């Protein structure tokens, strides 16, 4: 049984902002697959739920390798998958996220707004250089994803701000990406560790991102390591040296910190070999 709340279904963006400003305990409903679970467990007891389903423009989905992409905040993960995103890492992350039923409800933007350190879509979107398009009282602003996550379940959104969608810049067709996730079972489970990599050989760019190993998903710029490397093993070693310095894994109910570190090292090596080898 859920705790009682007042339900709002506004049609104008300004009304959403006003509701968020008027009610500190308001929760936004897009897919609801995190919100309802947290309400059910008692982790969140919003007095007001603001449903985005009647707002225009949030179902917009435009994906393309050669042009900037936009994924509106009501676009579900399965819709993104069916649209065949050109980046392998994003497809792999969505396929590894929860279950088919959940992906029919859950949204890509919601996965980011929930700001879990283990969010599966965070590493691929970080390496792709994505950003959140945010509606604030005075208009719109963009937040680069690497500045979006500020702590466990905390984001850079200010009071009254909410996400209109996710922007992904265009990338050359030669870009290679990969995503890997370690979980306890093959089915529905949160990541013990997840990681993504992007290699842009034309522009000498290498990015890696790691989730569930710090209070926020981490992004690493490895251009310098790429420039110096002469073999996949050498690059993997240099990449791991940079990545390992940023990790702050904890031990919890899913695994111990040493295991997270070891799995991240394995993923860094495997991803480098896949996209660079």
């Amino acid at each position, binding site marked *: 049984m859920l705790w009682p709340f*007042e339900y709002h*279904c*506004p*049609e104008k963006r300004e009304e959403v902002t006003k509701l968020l400003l008027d009610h500190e305990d308001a929760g936004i409903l897009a897919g*609801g*697959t995190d919100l309802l679970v947290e309400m*059910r467990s008692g982790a969140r007891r919003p007095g007001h739920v603001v449903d985005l389903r*009647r707002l225009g423009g949030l179902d917009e989905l435009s994906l393309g390798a050669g042009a900037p992409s936009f994924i509106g905040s009501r676009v579900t993960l399965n819709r993104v998958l069916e649209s065949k995103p050109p980046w392998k890492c994003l497809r792999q992350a969505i396929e590894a996220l929860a*279950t088919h039923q959940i992906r029919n409800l859950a949204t890509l933007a919601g996965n980011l707004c929930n700001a879990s350190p283990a969010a599966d879509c965070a590493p691929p979107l970080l390496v792709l250089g994505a950003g959140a398009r945010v509606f604030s009282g005075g208009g719109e602003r963009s937040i680069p994803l690497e500045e979006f996550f500020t702590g466990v379940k905390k984001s850079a959104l200010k009071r009254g701000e909410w996400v209109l969608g996710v922007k992904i810049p265009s990338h050359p067709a030669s870009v290679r990406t990969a995503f890997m996730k370690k979980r306890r079972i093959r089915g529905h489970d949160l990541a013990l560790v997840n990681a993504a990599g992007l290699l842009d050989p034309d522009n000498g760019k290498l990015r890696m991102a790691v989730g569930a190993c710090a209070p926020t998903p981490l992004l690493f710029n490895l251009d310098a390591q790429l420039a110096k490397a002469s073999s996949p093993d050498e690059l993997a070693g240099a990449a791991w040296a940079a990545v390992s310095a940023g990790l702050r894994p904890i031990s919890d109910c899913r695994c111990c910190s040493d295991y997270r570190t070891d799995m991240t090292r394995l993923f860094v090596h495997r991803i480098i070999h896949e996209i660079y080898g």
Partner: protein
Amino acid sequence: MSETGMTEKKIHVKVNGRDYDLQVSSHMTLLQVLKEKLVLTGAKEGCGMGECGACTVLLNGLAVNACLVLAVAADGAEIRTIEGEAGQEGLSPLQKAFIEHGALQCGFCTPGMIMSARELLSRNPNPTRDEIVEAISGNLCRCTGYEPIIDAIEAVAGRKGGRS
């Protein structure tokens, strides 16, 4: 029209082809409304947190966990539950296949399993065995070991029913 500050709301839903106008509390889930207001008790509440899939129904043609959907947010939706699976001619081919393959024991997961299979076959009439496994990966079964369930869905998909 925008709706603001409601704790009770009238919704209209079409369930298994029949129209309903219902008064629901804002904090009721779709699963609660199906079971308590419409006495459609086929969808089960297992975990109540989107983990087990026992509450799977089709919402506008898509398999969803009814425990994770607010009833007020389903206003205007078309819903299909296990009660809509059998037609005037009796059990559906999926239901018959589940019986023929011994794809159920306690039966708690069966309504959700069949709804997940129904969605799979509607979007992909000839799924591979791996695609069947993926489609029901959000439905837990603690009795059968899954193989007979996969066999049953495979048989309906026009493939040979035996294990591959």
